[in-house]
């Protein structure tokens, strides 16, 4: 089906044309490389990373140098030798220039070679695969085949920073769900030097695999490498768009590429040791080099991009596509973001297009807000909530942050079991990110000592306002209550810019608008007092419309006149250049001129939460919060609702349980709300409401329902009941005996087969065995009472029979 297009035509920039839609390479595995030509509309391909789109524009990684920090690189592999770069390579373990892997029987050191192929395997050489940046230079650092120390890491991360553009690392601290570890002092310095001085001051690009600890319920916030602002943390999605089993969630993930998933998902193919190919390369380590290669395409499109430009371009161009995550949300700057995939799947063509026209983002400001040192006790099953009013360091122009990039929360917590902690952070704009989730296997008592959690979820939002930190302690097992956890200290480190990151690209236009009146306009000099809203540049008259420049904001009218005002009036917003600009027609107040930048709406309209648009009525999935006049999102999985906790209709695949929507599970499974999956019932249950034998609602074949349990035989105090249903089926269950019986053969008080102590079995009934055994032999008091009973034939009366036991019941 492929149309042969000579690959040579792709080596120089060219726009795609319909004739070029199909590209064919003679590499053996080319046709299986679905993640590159996913748009072939075969195999139900849903969205792709637009690699071919970038190739068609002429970008194949030429003049970009990538190195793989790993266990070496097979530099003479037929798919790698052509692009191998000795200057981008080193053997840290052996302290020499040759990063060739050490060969052993298990091929343990295959990892680096596999990663390298994904980046820069040569194209059209009849061998194996095609790298995503198949004209990039590729190097390898052998550093994992020996003792890894801080120094080994630092050496690797700071290798040739003026020559190497991109460092790709697919390793880290153990993903066992109980480790908290990150770069030590030398590796930190290597990162910092790299971003400050690498690539001639533009900053080295560090790409990092986010972690494979999904099955161990690990959280990538506990890995200080992937959690760092200097690394681009890469997540993975399966071909289907589902979360792969190995995936870890966290708030520091920036973006995602494809990797392997379930058996039915297609796999990633790459170069392997001993000159071979493999489709076994999996996990986030398959994803990171793919991301490195896509970044290489962008760097070819614009070599002047700084390390932060690259991150901005990724944030702008990654997209949710068909990636399925329960927590996709739109932050206040309009970016879709999730804890599984960051900002979504990478889009190579969109990246190179952005790169081509990119203007550097303004310089990075770092605002370290004063630490909150109030000690708070973290009680089990309780929440500690701490609110911090951030200014974004507005009193210091060198540190002032208005528009956010990364947000770091530095926390010191003591706690008897670290894995029981979960931490959330909510930005002033209301974006909530989970900095830490519970970790089942983390029994450590060390807590967190000045650990830096990072979130990318507030990217583009405003920094100033109330930040809310919430710490939950959910004990997973019995724990000593004597030493509760304590939040000792926390502080915010806000990274971002003091001007809008994309404002510089229209700087000239803006400057033209900002300059004062022309010389012609200043024909007569005014020497009177100026309006209080004029700044020190003076005025041409007494009114606020005569100011040369404004103290606060200026309001422009249609007739091109302008006036200085202390605040922008309703229906206007203030921009970074002190101008009041008109909001969209339905907004009452707003933060920008677009219709999705409203903060309140005109009468008759409601603000749509998450979209910041104004609508006349709330749509599906939203309810009207009358107090705030906001269409708020219904709870997760709810199609319609009347308030934040009352669903009235559920999304497909969900069913209404009370007021909540739960996943509809197959018979024999139940919905586990904690894990958000359907899990199998106990084997004794046919259907159930939860885990264990006691949550059965219907029993499996051979089992009998006894209250809420399913049992093989009826327990003591229960009898076997057989009933024929309306459909004629025999239904067997265990029913409780009458309360007077200890054991019974059937229902009612006359079917007892044994009695509890203190009762005697009398013709199937249990009667009280009183101390009155025989009226004639009784003690004085009771004997006379029995005589009285007999004399008056009171034993004939049923209610009095038990008062005189055998005498009455046997002889009447």
């Amino acid at each position, binding site marked *: 089906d492929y149309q042969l297009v000579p690959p040579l035509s792709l080596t120089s920039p060219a726009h795609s044309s319909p004739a070029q839609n199909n590209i064919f390479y003679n590499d053996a595995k080319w046709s299986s490389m679905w993640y590159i030509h996913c748009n072939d509309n075969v195999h139900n391909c849903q969205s792709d990373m637009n690699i071919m789109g970038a190739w068609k524009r002429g970008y194949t990684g030429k003049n970009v140098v990538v190195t793989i920090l790993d266990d070496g690189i097979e530099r003479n592999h037929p798919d790698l030798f052509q692009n191998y770069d000795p200057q981008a390579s080193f053997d840290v373990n052996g302290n020499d220039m040759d990063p060739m892997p050490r060969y052993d029987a298990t091929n343990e050191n295959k990892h680096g070679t596999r990663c390298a192929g994904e980046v820069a395997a040569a194209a059209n050489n009849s061998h194996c695969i095609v790298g995503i940046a198949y004209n990039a230079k590729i190097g390898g650092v052998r550093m994992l085949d020996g003792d*890894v120390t801080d120094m080994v890491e*630092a*050496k690797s991360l*700071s290798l040739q920073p003026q020559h190497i553009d991109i460092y790709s690392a697919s390793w880290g601290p153990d993903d066992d769900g109980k480790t908290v570890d990150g770069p*030590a002092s030398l590796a930190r310095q290597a990162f910092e030097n790299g971003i400050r001085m690498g690539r001639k001051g533009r900053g080295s690009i560090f790409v990092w695999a986010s972690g494979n600890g999904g099955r161990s319920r690990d959280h990538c916030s506990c890995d200080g490498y992937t959690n760092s602002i200097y690394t681009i943390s890469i997540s993975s999605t399966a071909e289907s768009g589902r979360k792969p089993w190995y995936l870890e969630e966290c708030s520091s993930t920036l973006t995602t590429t494809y990797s392997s998933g379930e058996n039915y998902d297609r796999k990633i193919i790459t170069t392997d040791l001993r000159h071979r190919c493999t489709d076994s390369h999996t996990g986030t380590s398959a994803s990171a080099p793919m991301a490195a290669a896509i970044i290489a395409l962008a760097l070819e499109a614009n070599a002047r991009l700084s390390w932060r430009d690259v991150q901005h371009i990724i944030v702008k161009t990654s997209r949710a596509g068909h990636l399925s995550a329960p927590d996709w949300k739109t932050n206040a700057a309009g970016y879709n973001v999730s804890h599984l995939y960051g900002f979504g799947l990478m889009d190579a063509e969109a990246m190179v297009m952005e790169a081509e026209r990119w203007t550097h983002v303004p310089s990075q400001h770092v605002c370290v807000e004063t630490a909150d040192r109030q000690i708070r006790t973290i009680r089990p099953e309780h929440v500690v909530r701490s609110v911090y009013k951030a200014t974004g360091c507005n009193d210091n122009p060198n540190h002032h942050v208005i528009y956010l990039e990364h947000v770091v929360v530095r926390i010191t917590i003591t706690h008897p079991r670290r894995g029981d902690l979960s931490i959330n952070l909510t930005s002033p704009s209301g974006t909530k990110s989970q900095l830490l989730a519970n970790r089942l296997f983390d029994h450590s008592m060390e807590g967190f000592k000045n650990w830096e959690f990072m979130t990318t979820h507030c990217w583009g939002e405003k920094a100033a306002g109330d930040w809310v930190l919430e710490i939950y302690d959910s004990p997973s097992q019995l724990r000593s209550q004597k030493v509760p956890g304590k939040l000792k200290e926390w502080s915010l480190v806000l990274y971002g810019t003091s001007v809008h990151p994309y404002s510089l690209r229209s700087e000239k236009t803006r400057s033209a608008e900002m300059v004062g009146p022309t010389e012609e306009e200043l024909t007569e000099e005014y020497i009177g007092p100026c309006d209080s809203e004029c700044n020190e540049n003076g005025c041409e008259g007494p009114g606020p419309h005569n100011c040369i420049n404004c103290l606060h904001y200026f309001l422009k009218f249609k007739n091109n006149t302008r006036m200085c005002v202390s605040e922008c009036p309703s229906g206007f917003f203030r921009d970074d250049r002190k101008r009041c600009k008109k909001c969209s027609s339905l907004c009452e107040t707003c933060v920008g001129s677009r219709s999705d930048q409203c903060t309140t709406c005109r009468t008759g309209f409601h603000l749509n939460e998450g979209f910041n648009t104004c609508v006349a009525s709330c749509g599906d999935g939203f309810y009207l919060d009358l107090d705030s006049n906001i269409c708020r999102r219904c709870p997760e999985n709810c199609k319609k609702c009347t308030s934040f906790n009352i669903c009235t209709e559920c999304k497909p695949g969900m069913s209404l349980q009370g007021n909540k929507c739960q996943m509809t599970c197959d018979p024999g499974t139940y919905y586990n709300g904690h894990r958000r999956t359907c899990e199998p019932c106990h084997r004794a249950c046919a259907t159930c409401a939860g885990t264990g034998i006691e949550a059965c609602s219907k029993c499996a074949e051979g089992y009998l329902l006894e209250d809420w349990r399913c049992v093989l035989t009826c327990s003591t105090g229960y009898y076997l009941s057989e009933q024929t249903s309306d459909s004629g089926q025999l239904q067997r269950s265990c029913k409780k005996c009458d309360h007077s019986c200890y054991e019974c053969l059937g229902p009612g008080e006359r079917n007892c087969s044994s009695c509890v102590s203190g009762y005697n079995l009398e013709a199937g009934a249990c009667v009280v065995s009183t101390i009155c055994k025989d009226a004639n032999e009784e003690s004085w008091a009771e004997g006379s009472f029995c005589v009285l009973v007999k004399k008056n034939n009171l034993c004939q009366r049923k209610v009095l029979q038990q008062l005189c036991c055998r005498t009455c019941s046997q002889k009447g």
Partner: protein
Amino acid sequence: PPCNARIYTNHWAVRIAGGPDVAERIADKYGYRNMGQIGDLKDHYHFFHSRTIKRSTLSSRGRHSFISMEPKVEWIQQQVVKRRIKR
């Protein structure tokens, strides 16, 4: 060793002001081999001591403590093995 015990190696990271010659002289004086600068980190050197046990749960003392008293030695750290996993 217990799984959380530190394992000390016979490699040291040292920060020495004054350039490679000074680093070389100090390495010689205390019996280390100077393996050169640590990557691109200025004034940071990799010292190796072949007569120290390759891996130990105890950190090394003696000459390794004395070297820190050299006026040009600003910082020294015996390197510890870090558990790193390929992903």
